[in-house]
């Protein structure tokens, strides 16, 4: 079985996933992916956010119109157009911040793991193009072989809420990643005068 793995440690912020998502044949022109810098002033680290496809999707649980459905194989879909009342409950409730409200359509849209592709054995668009392997679609055996330094995790704690997801997050097995810093790798101290002025 092919599964979806997110490895934020590999993300290079190129937005290829964002661009490719909008090429998906079921929602051409609209990207469902969020890609953000964590804290650009101090790092180029970025994180791609696709739907985690929860076993018990909070978005569906809070939907007053019962518009959000989960397929038999665990994919949480975009809201059903006839039912969605564009109330934004799902947008506010999702612990991962995934659903987007398309105001012009009065419709919540979100990643459906390229259901048109994955249901016929193709990889999702984002995980196809991602040039760094931050988004990966393949079997458990493949990811374990390719990424021995990380382990897939699919259980997350948000306060009292425990969430189990279809999508896995790759987490380093050993130490946290060392923060690379310019100043600490420098010999000279340019602008010493400025350094001294800063407490």
């Amino acid at each position, binding site marked *: 079985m092919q599964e979806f793995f997110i490895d934020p440690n590999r993300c290079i912020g*190129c937005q290829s996933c964002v661009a490719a998502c909008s090429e998906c044949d079921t929602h051409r022109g609209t990207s469902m992916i969020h890609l953000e810098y964590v804290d650009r002033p101090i790092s180029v680290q970025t994180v791609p956010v696709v739907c985690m496809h929860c076993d018990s999707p909070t978005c569906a649980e809070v939907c007053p119109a019962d518009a959000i459905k989960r397929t038999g194989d665990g994919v949480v879909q975009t809201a059903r157009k006839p039912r969605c009342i564009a109330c934004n409950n799902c947008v506010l409730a999702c612990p991962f911040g995934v659903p987007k409200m398309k105001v012009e359509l009065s419709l919540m849209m979100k990643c459906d793991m390229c259901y048109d592709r994955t249901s016929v054995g193709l990889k999702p668009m984002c995980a196809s193009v991602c040039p760094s392997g931050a988004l990966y679609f393949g079997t458990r055996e493949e990811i374990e072989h390719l990424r021995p330094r990380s382990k897939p995790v699919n259980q997350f704690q948000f306060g009292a809420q425990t969430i189990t997801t279809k999508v896995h997050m790759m987490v380093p097995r050993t130490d946290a990643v060392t923060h690379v810093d310019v100043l600490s790798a420098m010999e000279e101290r340019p602008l010493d005068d400025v350094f001294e002025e800063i407490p």
Partner: protein
Amino acid sequence: MATLPKSTDVLVNAWGPHLNRMEGPRVDTGTEPDRIVPTHCCFCGQQCGINLKVKDNLVIGFEPRYDFPFNKGMLCPKGVKRYLQGGHPDRITTALRRDPENENGFAPMPYDDAIARVAAEIERIQSTYGPNAFGVLSGASLTTEKAYLMGKFARVCLKTKYIDYNGRLCMVSAGAANKKSFGIDRSASPWNDILGAEVVIIAGSNTAECSPITTNYVWQARENGGKVIVVDPRITPIARTADLFLPVKPGRDVALFNGILHLMIENDWLDHDFIAQHTVGFEAVAEHVQQWTPKRTAEVTGIAEKSIRAAAELWGTAKTSFLMHARGIEHHSHGVENCLSTINIVLASGRIGRPNCGYGTVVGQGNGQGGREHGQKCDQLPGWRDISNPAHREYVAGVWGVKAEELPEAGVDCYEMMRKIDAGEIKGLLSICFNPKVSLPDNAFVTRALEKLEFFTVIDFFLSETAQHADIVLPGSLHEEDEGVVAQVEGRVIKINKAVDPPGDAKQDWRVIQDIAHALGRPHGFTFESPREIFDELRVASKGGVADYFGITYEKIEANNGVCWPCPTLEHPGTPRLFEDQRFYFPDGKARFNVAAYRPPAEDVDAEYPVILTTGRVVSQFLSGTQTRRIGPLVDQYPEPRVEIHPRLAQKYGIADGDWTTVESRRGTVTLRAQVVTTIRPDTVFIPYHWPGKKSANQLTIAAQDPVSKIPEYKVCAVRIYPERSEGSVEQQR
């Protein structure tokens, strides 16, 4: 008369860049493509495989090309959105003539009349001032067939010695160093050799943004236990997780690699057998690097001594390794020495020509490799032959059916051509696939030179900032409107396939060139009916040269997902990994160590201009932006250049994140918003160079060049910075 016919505002309003976005059949989820065309991306030297979806002679989208082994479906955002350059409102679909009376500055004209006018002007200039008064500028985004034809056109049809190409801004430092060290100019190793490397050194390559697919190779090497060392003044995305980050002071790379070699010698981390049997020149280099003690290396490079020692130990004690470099160490007035200093540590390690032991230069342009092999370079003939070598001239003249003595001598590099235009020596110019007004350094001078031309013609698909100066614009073809081969970063020759026809009067570039030759009454050698015919002549012209393509055919490329040159016979499988027999391309078969002496940048900082400026790229734009500044989603991603400043430096000048900030060099000023980040050295500011006019970083850069490769020093010049408080001047920038 190559001044702008109208103001820039008028020209931009009429001819763009305008933004093309997904609409019509490209956004309609019900559109079924007529066909899917397997080809490659039009942008960088990775040359990712891509399938283009075509409907009614329009590329409407893409499908990942999982079966192409280099990228396996992967693409960067430029590749994903590249198709939006087709069906673009800015597309030039007729010939144009400069017309200040026309409200748009240019008037459409019949194609044949335009060709006749170009031929007449070439004839007039050459008969008045001599054949060398007309020059040709070409480019390395052209297919190899076109690049070959441009070289032949200049030498055989125009009989001018003045042809050069924009690979001068890209691959020439690496190329010159490769020739000096190995006798052959190509990445030595297939990219799969990265995967098993214990140590990967990345020097001056913003890999994640400029060659994104390579990121996956590097990070897979880490998963396999490899250590990654990144040499860069900025923490680029590939540096973020580096095992060792060496924040080199711009322009000091030679010192770093000489310092590493010093430690390799001191600790006897050398492959003595390899050095003795397969190289010459080690003693002189060893003697030279004696002065590069860790302490001195640290002082000059600005890198902590302990990091230099750690890098030397990682590299020195590794069993396998891969070293790659790109423009970061090549764009210098000592770019060749920078590359030689990296090659020296590869040769001292003996780790080359074997599995998981590699060296490569990360090619920039789509055909940055193939475009530098077959004669559009000022001193070169096809097959990497030398235009100054009598035997080489004799051979190529024979293929071309002309006398060797009729071939011109070597010309000069493209920047020197600008100086010759300025000096009145070159009066007329034909330019294709080149946007020097944006891409050359000190571009106020470039503009002045262009304005002095008596006649200027440009073959292009959009009216680039350079084409705005043209007297006649001839409508050329997009990448997806023609077929041909290119050589990607590994030296793998691959096939670009045609997906759609050129619109209106636009024609494949090789047809335009041949039409000019015919109009000049010099059709001999310019009667090709297809790119395949050009390629077949190129195969013969390259035969026996270092870059031997004779054994490569279109069919062989298709059957094997590419063929790596050299490939001398039809039976030959190609050469994915060079030097497997430990023989290098010199008569004695031995590689050369070359002394790489440290020289500071041409323009170092001083009290007046105390800050270093370095320039580079962002992932969503490509080179001078002629294509990518017209693609809406790519512009949305990074709409405007910003100047990256470390908070320490920003605080010194009272600059906050987002403030309008003026950067001033001895050549020009630019005012941009500041991006205050700790991911850059505090003595250095960075500006990406993809934009024209008042946003152009190349208003500031210096036209100092490497004495051998003639590459400009884009990566270092001296500037001063200050917050821009005057509202009026800021308004002008918007």
